[in-house]
């Protein structure tokens, strides 16, 4: 409760948090709130403008309800982005924390490999992984995990190295704490804010990456609605129906922005030194 109240005092972060929550709710409750079936083709109603014939945001080139597709699209976007980021935190984060804490030559080699991966743009890595494993959703998630792991490895590595040099780590050592206890009590709590901020930023990026892959025709395949593919397809009918690309674009913009705001708020939330008196 205390934590929630602290978050509420930061208005931007709270707004971000609410928007994130709404997006998640939207994804979970999609079948309940979507007014139409998102893949139900209705040729006679194609290119219906917004607020006409029972379609709040209009219909697309084959007469599917845009609002329903946006609602269902959030499922793919959020699922791909969050699982990619969580996977990247687990993989990259562990490599970073362990290399940073224990050092040694194995870790030096691991971190150099990470550096090499870091030099290649994420989308390039993603493209090659999809090229290898096909366009299934799991392949896309795997591709993004590979692409994002180096970043989390780097962040966790530098955070761990900085924490390792702190006197309280020496104090814990002198008090008989085992390396695992030190990792759990000293290293992780102190680098957690760094990880959380990176996570929310990268969930935002993951949404964009999924959209980009969809835009390139390499994302989750039609007819499954995703924001990225909706954007791609609508581009072709832009002159005919100019509002069509606006909705998926807006959905991406709002959710990315919400995750960014929320992440900034979380960082302050996890640092007791940033709390104001009386909270």
């Amino acid at each position, binding site marked *: 409760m205390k934590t929630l109240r602290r978050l509420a005092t930061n208005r931007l972060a709270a707004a971000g948090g609410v928007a994130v929550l709404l997006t998640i709710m939207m994804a979970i409750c999609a079948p309940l709130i979507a007014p139409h079936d998102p893949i139900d083709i209705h040729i006679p109603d194609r290119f219906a403008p917004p607020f006409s014939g029972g379609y709040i945001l209009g219909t697309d080139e084959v007469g599917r309800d845009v609002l329903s597709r946006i609602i269902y699209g959030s499922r793919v976007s959020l699922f791909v982005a969050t699982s990619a980021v969580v996977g990247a935190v687990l993989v990259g984060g562990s490599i970073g924390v362990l290399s940073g804490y224990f050092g040694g030559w194995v870790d030096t080699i691991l971190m150099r490999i990470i550096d090499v991966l870091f030099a290649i743009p994420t989308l390039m890595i993603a493209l090659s992984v999809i090229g290898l494993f096909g366009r299934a959703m799991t392949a896309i998630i795997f591709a993004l995990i590979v692409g994002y792991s180096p970043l989390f490895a780097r962040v966790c590595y530098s955070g761990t190295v900085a924490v390792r040099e*702190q*006197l*309280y780590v*020496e*104090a*814990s*050592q*002198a*008090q*008989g*704490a*085992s390396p695992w*206890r030190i990792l759990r*009590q*000293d290293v992780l*709590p*102190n680098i*957690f804010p760094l990880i959380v901020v990176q996570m929310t930023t990268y969930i935002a990026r993951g949404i964009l990456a999924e959209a980009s892959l969809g835009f390139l025709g390499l994302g989750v395949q039609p007819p499954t609605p995703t924001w990225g593919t909706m954007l791609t397809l609508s581009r072709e009918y832009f002159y005919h129906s100019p509002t069509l690309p606006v909705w998926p674009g807006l959905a991406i913009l709002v959710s990315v922005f919400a995750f960014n705001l929320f992440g900034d708020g979380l960082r302050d939330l*996890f*640092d*007791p*030194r940033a709390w104001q008196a009386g909270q």
Partner: protein
Amino acid sequence: MQPLLEVADLRAHFFTRYGVIKAVDGVSFEIFPGEIVGLAGESGCGKSVTTQCILRILPVPGRIVSGDIRLQGESLLDLSQEEMRDVRGGRISIVLQDALAALNPVITTGRQVADVFQAHSPVPWKEAWQQAVDVMRAVGIPKPEIRAEHYAHEFSGGMQQRTVIAAALICKPDLIIADEPTTALDVTIQMQILNLLKQAQQEMGSSILYISHDLANIARICERVMIMYAGQIVEIGSVRDIYSSPLHPYTRGLMACIPPMEGERHCYLPAISGSPPDPLMYPAGCRFAPRCAEAQERCKFESPPFNSVGDGRYVRCFQD
């Protein structure tokens, strides 16, 4: 009586790319059960490295190259890392100088104190927490059940140091190493912390190795004192003997630097001329010889032995 801690001809060297730094070079001393021993010396003389050796937490590239450290007759250098972890914080604990830096900023103080207890005895968390609150009360933290939920930065400097002491006391160790615990505090709080350490020693019967460069504080709580210079102990004796009749020229120099309480008010304080030797190239003979007013020819080439001069006094000098 069997000494609690015996350090015998301890040598710890740092193998850097510039050469070998002999931070601790032939240190021998004993601490008996229940006594408070002072270890004094200027910055960089090897006081803290000595404590790191005792706990075996020397940072790389440091290594203990020879000597022995025995706790109740058992060599600490033979213990495995796991066994050593039981010693650290359990039988030997340490109070560090910079209390704020020694406390984890994002974990409540009570949890950190309780953690030390739980690391050494497998008790449920609730019990460890209760122990932590009790020991925090014992070290004079008011309303410990509330304060234990607070973070280190919400404490004053004195309260932070009390928390660090609480963590050091919670397992009732045989030996408490206090590494300049009062340096960062103002004098009234210094006094309180010294009394607290002394009280802990009396109630638990622990020994204390009190490290400081403040001779006045050492005189206040220690029975015996060891003077360290350039990686070696140059003199050991009771506080009374050493303060009233220092034997080693370095100790004499240190005592002369204490401002006199009486006499001329506007006089210059004497200082020991020169500076400590470069630890990469110690002089061949006595390490204090280049600064010593009484140095003879042989002092430059021969290392003086560490001789007993009776009454538990030892001095590293050719003079009698």
